[in-house]
């Protein structure tokens, strides 16, 4: 009952916000939703399949470039938006076959390398527009209806996020979801219980890439341009920070983590652009916040914010606190 009411409340607030926010606040709101979309994928990949990807920004970029290229070549935007997650997922399937043989820190570095290669290629190739990138991407629209306002993009973003969360929820609660949890603990044990370890890991990798691709597609229509500079390595690290802060392997954790970090960085940006602050203040503050939050959470809240708070609440309600190490 409480869950239903809370869910309805969250949905109502989410739907009401775009109508009351002004344009600059809407920009934050949209970026928050996009970040949450990617983070849900990261959380699924790290928390359930036990794989660390430092290259999630690459799939975001693939989605954005796919949608942008299609839209610039006269394909209807809706087709571009559908193609973005599909192409990102196919790309993940292709590179996942060799890469997912790797584990732990090897996989982390390989995915980071993949993103660096992709960015370097995007900066050199003709059809991606080189370092300047692609500009003049048309507005999103269906048929003759065209998205003119930021509020429309906000609704699109949060509808996308709802879809991503629904898919993730269904994956987690299904039989393959339990299999994923098993293989995150021990691949050998999972394989000997008859779980097809390789294909499952590959599918989750592709799914998380599709989420990132969808976010990338929306991003390119919203901003109107894409360039290699929009997808630095730091963006991939940022998704890790959000997923870890919120709590790995929890859907709401990813959303809360993305929200907390986005709002924190945004608040600090405002602080840093006050008169009298040095010109380097915004970047310094955001680097410091990412770093400190990441270190503190990994060391002292290893399960993340949402599980920690939920655990504390249920303990208060039910029984005297249990001393955990």
């Amino acid at each position, binding site marked *: 009952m409480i869950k239903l009411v809370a869910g309805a409340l969250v949905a109502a607030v989410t739907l009401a916000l775009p109508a009351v926010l002004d344009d600059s606040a809407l920009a934050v709101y949209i970026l928050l939703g996009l970040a949450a979309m990617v983070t849900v994928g990261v959380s699924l990949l790290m928390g359930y399949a036990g794989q660390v990807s430092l290259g999630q920004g690459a799939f975001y970029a693939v989605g954005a470039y796919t949608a942008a290229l299609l839209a610039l070549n006269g394909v209807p935007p809706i087709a571009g938006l559908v193609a973005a997650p599909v192409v990102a997922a196919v790309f993940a399937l292709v590179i996942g076959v060799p890469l997912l043989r790797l584990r732990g820190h090897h996989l982390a570095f*390989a995915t980071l390398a993949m993103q660096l290669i992709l960015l370097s290629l995007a900066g050199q190739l003709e059809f991606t527009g080189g370092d300047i990138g692609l500009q003049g991407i048309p507005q999103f629209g269906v048929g003759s209806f065209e998205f003119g306002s930021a509020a429309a993009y906000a609704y699109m973003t949060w509808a996308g996020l709802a879809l991503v969360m629904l898919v993730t929820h269904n994956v987690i609660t299904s039989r393959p979801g339990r299999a994923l949890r098993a293989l995150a603990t021990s691949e050998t044990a999972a394989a000997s219980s008859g779980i097809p370890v390789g294909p499952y890991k590959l599918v989750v990798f592709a799914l998380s890439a599709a989420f990132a691709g969808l976010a990338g597609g929306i991003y390119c229509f919203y901003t109107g341009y894409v360039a290699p500079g929009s997808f630095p390595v730091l963006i991939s690290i940022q998704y890790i920070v959000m997923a870890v802060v919120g709590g790995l392997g929890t859907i709401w954790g990813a959303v809360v983590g993305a929200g907390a970090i986005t709002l924190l960085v945004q608040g600090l940006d405002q602080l840093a652009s006050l008169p009298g602050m040095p010109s380097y203040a915004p970047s310094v503050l955001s680097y410091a916040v990412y770093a400190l939050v990441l270190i503190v959470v990994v060391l002292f809240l290893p399960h993340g914010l949402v599980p920690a708070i939920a655990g504390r609440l249920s303990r208060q309600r039910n029984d005297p606190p249990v001393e955990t190490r």
Partner: protein
Amino acid sequence: MSAFLTYLLNGLAVGCAIALIASGLVVIHRVTGVVNFAQGTFAVVAGLCMSSLLGLGLPHGASEVAAVLAATVAGLLTGLAAIGKPGVTPLSSLIVTLGVGVLAYAVEIVLWGDQPRSAPGLAGSVTVAGARIQTQYLLVIAVTALTFVALALFFGRTYLGKALTACASNPYAARVVGIDVRRMGLLAFALGGLLGGIAGVLVTPMRPISFDTDVTLIVNAFAAAVFGALTRPVVTLAGALVLGVAETMAAGYGYGSHQLEIALGLMIVVMIVQASRRTAISQEST
């Protein structure tokens, strides 16, 4: 022909610098099981420190030593953050070192700004068999050779080095005979900082260093260390030299813009080949 020799020697020097950073990575990984993402940061800290100290008028020699010491302290601090708290898994420690690397960005920008900085090294050049090579490059090769000899002596001949090796091969047995594994881990991090610092001091005169150079450095070093499966220093040295020469040749013969792709592609291929040779069980138990 002389162009080829120049590229070869320059490549060896670049490879030596990578090897120094990679050996720090190997030392830390052997003892603690942690892949230190902040290893490139140590080199950056040393390079930036050196450029500042030389700018303040400190003589050569003193500036370099001070810069390497600063990197050693940075290594120790990173170690404290990464393995100071008991019960943190190596993969969590990797994420912590990632955080330390990003935190270092903030500190570096406040102290040195976000523009690349350079420092004067050894001036002049010598001609070896018709190939001109800058003296600084020869210095890099010589210092790296000396460092690796010193490392071999340290690990093979001293009590402390043997204790570190003991922790690397079997932490439990090392604890049983009274070796403080955590202190050894911190020592390994400090040593990693020292090695990264030496690399930074040597690299800064060859190419300007800025706060975000560490990504290129760590990726190259990791690629080299992967040759030796992150545990064997000598294979790592060979891997770094191959990498340095391959990159410099690529740049020299006109594929300069694809330098990074070559290094990264090579790294991924080597890792996948290695992974296919090991079984899942042996990877999970280590």
